[in-house]
């Protein structure tokens, strides 16, 4: 049986507050397993413990109790981070560095061999669509560009695990779609992805499994299709059905002691419409 990519074991995090006021319990006995090659979405309202969970997994803070294992190794070892790439939320990078310099800096920190750095930097800049802004300082980048350079630095060292905290925040729908496509392509290459986002539709589109945190506890967890399925209902979408056909179907359903809950025209999403219109506009 393969070792999980990420395994959080009975993790509890209590933040002490000064002057002996009530302590903040950010996480309560969290247990979490993410299989290799899986895309896992971590959801929860503000203050639910998502950031704390990510920081504990990354080793930026230590749990008060419990442990975290990355491919079976304790994550307190710094070497484990060679397998992890991280995109923080609203991250800034050194504004005085150019895009290329930033990636070279992070490549150096990640231990990427020097002979590979140049080509890898060029490859990633092209992948995230920043090849033309490579020599511009990050101080001149838009938020969307910063997000993309952030993604590039997270990928610089071919990590096996990618941790993304709000990866599409401040990114326009086209950029957001690109990031989503990138996430899916990374999954196909076997990268494990832990994704934290408020954008539930996006999570729904890319994630295999989700976990919902609330007040430091994991309330629900599982595969999306299992979690979202309404047990006793079935959706049937029919094309080119005549009114007569629909009428006969409803009679059959009633005769079988079932019930038509709703009858309506399926709708496309606003995002799909936006993309369709803007792509057509470009043409």
């Amino acid at each position, binding site marked *: 049986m393969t070792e999980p990519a990420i395994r959080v074991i009975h993790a509890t995090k209590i*933040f002490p507050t000064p002057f002996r006021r009530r302590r903040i319990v950010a996480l309560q006995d969290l247990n979490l397993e993410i299989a290799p090659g899986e895309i896992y979405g971590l959801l929860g309202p503000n203050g639910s413990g998502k950031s704390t969970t990510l*920081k504990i997994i*990354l*080793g*930026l*803070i*230590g749990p008060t109790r419990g442990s975290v294992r990355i491919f079976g190794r304790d994550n307190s070892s*710094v*070497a*484990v*981070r*060679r397998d*992890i*790439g*991280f*995109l*923080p*939320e*609203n*991250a*800034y*990078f*050194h504004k*005085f*560095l150019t895009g290329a310099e930033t990636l070279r*800096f*992070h490549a*150096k*920190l*990640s*231990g990427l061999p020097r002979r590979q750095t140049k080509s890898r930097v060029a490859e990633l800049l092209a992948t995230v669509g920043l090849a033309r802004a490579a020599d511009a300082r990050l101080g001149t980048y838009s938020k969307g560009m910063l997000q993309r350079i*952030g993604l590039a*630095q*997270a990928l610089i*060292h071919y990590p096996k695990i990618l*941790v993304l905290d709000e990866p599409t925040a401040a990114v326009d729908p086209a950029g957001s779609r690109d990031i989503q496509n990138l996430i899916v392509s990374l999954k196909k290459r076997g990268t494990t992805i832990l994704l934290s986002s408020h954008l539930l539709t996006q999570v729904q589109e890319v994630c295999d499994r989700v976990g919902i945190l609330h007040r430091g506890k994991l309330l629900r967890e599982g595969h999306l299709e299992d979690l979202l399925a309404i047990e006793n209902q079935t959706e049937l979408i029919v094309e080119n059905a005549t009114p007569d056909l629909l009428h006969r179907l409803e009679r059959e359903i009633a005769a079988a002691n079932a019930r038509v809950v709703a009858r309506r025209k399926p709708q496309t999403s606003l995002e799909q419409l936006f993309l369709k219109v803007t792509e057509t506009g470009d043409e």
Partner: protein
Amino acid sequence: MSSSLGRIGAIARTTFIELARLRVFYVLVLFALVLIISSSFLARISFQQELQVTKDIGLGAINFFLSMLAIVATAQLLPRDLEDRVIYSVLAKPVRRFEYMLGKFFGVLGLLIISLVAMSILCLAVIHLREGAAVRETMQQLAQSPSEELDHALVGVHQAGANRDLVLALLLTLTKAAVLISLTLCISSFATSNIFTITAMAMVYLVGHLESIARDFWLHQRAAGWLVRAFLAAVAFFFPDLQAFNLSDQIIAGGSLSNLMLLKLLGLGVIYIVGYLVIAIAIFSRREL
């Protein structure tokens, strides 16, 4: 090991670039340059003291500005990285906390070395010019005197000018500044704001110049109460003796610095730097980000 040095080097390099692009750096250096140049005008007030005053003010300005630069440049490193969340992307990489701290230390040190070289070149140039003027003046005044009297006077002028000991005084100034970097990192490792660190370091700077007096009092004066002695002991234990590096007084007055004394002082500097950095790393390693 080499990858560790590589990471430290990468962080040091970005720290250096970050600081070099801060306008405050240019202002401080400019101010120091102005002060050093002004010493030559001040010196004209007392013609007999030209070289001494030039050296005093020059070295004093370099000492002060290098110390200030060390504290101000270092104090804002950690808070800025934390506020901008740059630190998350760095420490999420396989970067040990000690590598991060050492990178910051060497980055600031690099900045100070360049500042010191710039200010020293100007200071030495001004001293050299003053020395030249003093030689011409002496030769004019003693034109009718026996040659041995003139030679004796000229030897005195050259001794008062730029010499090896002046360079050593500058080296000790750099050592003192490096101690201040490590101490500032130590305070910054647990401080929550830039202001707190700078304020604390201002106090440390002053107390550090009195540490030898406090230590002497604690060791030799038994009459003081237990509270006073405890306070003096705390100063002796934790504060560096910054006055030890202010040898410019003696050097300018013509005293010489033996190689043994120089080695001892550099050794003292190394002990301070390593000690405060180890404490800084120990505290920072347990800091929750």
